[in-house]
């Protein structure tokens, strides 16, 4: 499987070239186009897994802000192409895992090799105060994984410590430890400073951040729309 990114950086599109019988997993609803022989399967869990276990995983992912169902796209009978796009404007980057683990912010997942398992992981009890989807997705396995940003993506090599606003985290390598806390300046800046919660990273590894915050954007525009019924 080969994932290439076209139309970078503002309105990126992930183009997945599948060999015969290969499967790519994607966030439900993100498919733009594909060859007609690609078969779509909707399943909450991995193939061959019990229905209940799959359903539980789906619910966990839903809590994480990701769609309940992920779709499986299989190139049945011959090589084929599928393309995926995120909802908001922004970039897509690719990380390749080799029996490794990688963490993603819940709405950053675009698509991945089906040898990678994507599961929700809580960042600790403190994160419940965040309201910014601090539940991370944990991707484990082998193969390429594509992730998207709102705005531009900035890659940072952490050696030591680094602090990121939780709304700007895209992804990070599992060699980094992370803990969530309120922003440093005491309660006054937590309540009035608009900086909410931050994530403190420690160790050595790669970190990807986005230059815009989708929750802030949603609140800005959504608050100006007429109220909804329920």
């Amino acid at each position, binding site marked *: 499987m080969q994932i290439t990114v*076209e*139309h970078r950086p*503002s*309105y*990126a*599109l992930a183009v997945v070239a599948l060999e015969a019988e290969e499967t790519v997993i994607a966030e*439900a*609803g*993100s*498919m*733009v*186009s*594909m*060859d*007609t022989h690609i078969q*779509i*399967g*909707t399943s909450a869990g991995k193939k061959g897994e019990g229905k209940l276990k799959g359903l539980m995983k789906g619910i966990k992912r839903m809590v994480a802000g990701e*769609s*309940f*169902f992920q*779709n499986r796209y299989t190139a049945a009978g011959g090589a084929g192409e599928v*393309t995926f*796009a995120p*909802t*908001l*404007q922004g970039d897509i980057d690719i990380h390749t895992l080799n029996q490794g683990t990688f963490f993603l912010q819940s709405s950053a997942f675009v698509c991945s090799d089906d040898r990678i398992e994507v599961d929700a992981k809580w960042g600790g009890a403190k994160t419940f105060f965040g309201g910014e989807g601090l539940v991370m997705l944990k991707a484990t396995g082998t193969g390429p994984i594509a992730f998207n940003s709102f705005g531009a993506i900035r890659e940072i090599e952490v050696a030591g410590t680094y602090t990121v606003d939780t709304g700007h985290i895209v992804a990070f390598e599992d060699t980094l430890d992370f803990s969530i806390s309120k922003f440093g300046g005491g309660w006054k800046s937590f309540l009035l400073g608009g900086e909410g919660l931050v994530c403190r990273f420690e160790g050595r590894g790669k970190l990807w951040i986005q230059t815009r915050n*989708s929750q802030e954007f*949603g*609140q800005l*525009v*959504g*608050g100006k*729309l*007429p*109220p*909804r*019924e*329920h």
Partner: protein
Amino acid sequence: MQHQIKNKPDYASLHVLLDDGDQIVTEAGAMMSMDRGLDMETNAKGGVMGALKRAAGGESLFLNTYTATGPGQRLDLGPSTPGDIEHREMYGDALMVQSGSYMASTPDIQVDTKWGGAKTFFGGEGLFMLRCSGKGHLWFSSYGAIHTVDVKETYQVDTSHIVAFEDTLTFQVKSVGGLKSLLFSGEGLICEFSGSGKLYLQTRSASALAGFLHPFRRVKQQNSGS
């Protein structure tokens, strides 16, 4: 007439320089700025009957026709979404264009809203497909980037990502994967193309953006008293 697309690809705009008597037809909201000498007439194209037909079908597309009354008059056009603009010179061929993507054309291009199948593409999104044919210039815009696909045999696309396609392609709109997919996968209508021809897609979808923003709307207060 001279024309140029500037500010590609994220915030493209179209700039036209018209000679005396030159005309250009645009989607009603596309004008950004212009020289004072330009004459503008709304919905003149197609005549009264055409306008009535459009209203009766529920597919309304107001077109403005700009006419230059002197040499070197400028008209600047911008689409409603962030994204790109594509120019096509037509030589008597036909292109199907999604109504929200149609931007402008020269007067010898026929813009037909009433061809069979115009409404079959989109599920209640207020969009339809226009059939643009004839000889001249045609401009259309996208939300996001324009992704071009040369269809050789068959290809399928989420309908909310369709910008335009050549009428050498035949198509069939369908829902994908059965009921479960429709309810839970988030995938709506798919258009399956067959034949050989060019297909223009947009890399973002306005309905997906609306879906993202919906949960951020305030909830209406239930008013039981009055």
